[in-house]
């Protein structure tokens, strides 16, 4: 495969650059909502503070899992990003069953967030972990239905071919329900904004409650990286990935992904958090039928 190493380097750039971008966007959006001036120094200051802050400990934590949970979460962002084609022939890994690999990434994301909640041996993080399982497992279904939808016109589960099949028409126009549903999945995977069940203030920041210092920093960065990777997957599956006129492919990929990230961060600040019971009920009674509808429509169009 040509471009494997270049693809790997660029995927790492997507994950790390995206995490930095999310931190900057998040701080800017927070400042605008609060009516103060956005500052680029504020996120840097926060990172520096977390780096020097003491790491709190809990009573009888599971130390290996406490270390592994953020690492697992971040590596799932990296594995996901490695699947995404940044240009024609510029992809780190192009397995023929790309959509299934993405599904495996989502299922391990659920494991990572639960273990982050479980490993400190503390009540509030544990509740955050359980809530995430309820939401995460439900969202994996939604995600798989809409992604099988985009595999249908491409007649392939490989992501480069899914992008190539959008040359004539992007999937966002072909399957209008897909992108909104997938963005909700993205928000859920990073427990962002309205779907922040794992880290909500009602649980005193839930899965993060007993993480401080570098541990908290690793967790927040992984979360931003996951949001970026999922937004980039939204670009690949629904917005034609690297396709676009004049500009080179990777530039289009970055522009589209950046746009989706801005949308996700802004929605996160404008829409209030939803109660866990309501989230799970709506996923099963509203979103899942919509995902079925999306898949049925995609199938009829593909036939």
């Amino acid at each position: 495969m040509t471009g494997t190493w270049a693809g790997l380097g660029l995927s790492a750039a997507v994950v790390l650059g995206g995490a930095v971008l999310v931190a900057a966007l998040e701080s800017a959006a927070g400042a605008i909502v609060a009516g103060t001036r956005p500052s680029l120094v504020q996120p840097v200051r926060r990172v520096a503070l977390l780096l020097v802050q003491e790491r709190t400990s809990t009573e009888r934590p599971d130390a290996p899992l406490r270390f592994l949970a953020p690492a697992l979460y971040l590596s799932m962002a990296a594995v996901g990003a490695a699947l995404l084609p940044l240009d024609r022939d510029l992809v780190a890994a192009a397995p023929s069953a790309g959509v299934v690999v993405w599904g495996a990434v989502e299922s391990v994301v659920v494991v990572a967030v639960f273990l982050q909640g479980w490993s400190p041996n503390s009540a509030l993080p544990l509740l955050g972990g359980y809530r995430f399982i309820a939401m995460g497992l439900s969202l994996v279904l939604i995600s798989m239905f809409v992604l099988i939808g985009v595999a249908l016109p491409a007649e392939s589960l490989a992501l480069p071919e899914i992008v190539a099949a959008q040359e004539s028409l992007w999937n966002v126009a072909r399957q209008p329900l897909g992108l909104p549903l997938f963005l909700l999945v993205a928000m859920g995977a990073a427990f962002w904004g309205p779907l922040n069940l794992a880290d909500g203030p009602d649980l005193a920041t839930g899965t993060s409650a007993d993480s401080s210092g570098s541990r908290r920093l690793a967790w927040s960065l992984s979360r931003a990286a996951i949001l970026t990777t999922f937004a980039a997957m939204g670009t690949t599956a629904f917005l034609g990935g690297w396709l676009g006129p004049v500009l080179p492919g990777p530039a289009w990929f970055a522009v589209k992904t950046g746009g989706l990230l801005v949308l996700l961060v802004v929605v996160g600040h404008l829409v209030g958090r939803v109660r866990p019971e309501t989230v799970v009920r709506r996923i099963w009674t509203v979103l899942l039928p919509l995902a079925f509808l999306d898949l049925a429509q995609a199938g009829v169009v593909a036939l």
Partner: protein
Amino acid sequence: MTGGPWVDVAFWTFSAAAAVTGWRVFRTDSMVRASYFLLASFVNVGAIVLLLTAQYLGFAIIFMMGVEMTVMAVFMVMFMMNPGGLMPMSMVHQPRVAALGGVALGGGVAAVALASTFPSRPVGDATGLTAELGVELLGDSMLIFESAGVTLLAAMIAAVVLSSRRGRYGEGDEGSAPPALDPEETG
């Protein structure tokens, strides 16, 4: 995938990791750790399947087991006899019988593996294998897989109905009181 020393190294590494994590399932003291050791074992088995270039099956094993082990951990903690399943506890029942049974079964499988001659056919590319799998699932074996699928779906719906708070006769917890926070009050 063309064979080579690295495939052998990968195979033995994944096999050893699968066996060791599988053994740890029974030596740990918590349901959650046991579930995720089992997941680690299955992930290694998935990696071995990937070495056979069966991409779809290999990744599907990792995908499915990630979800299943999580569900298993939640259910085991939920139905544990000690409060919330959060106390350290032994992961084995009837260890002597189980050990004998395990040795007998494992020895049997190993004997079959050693005694039989396996066909030596080079595997094709992964795309072809995924397509063949699809034809198999929706061709000759369709009845088996569809009946298994519908049975599982019925079981899932039944589980949701049984665990639902709202039922035909109103709220499931109507008239019940939450347990007291102070253990003295319960007595």
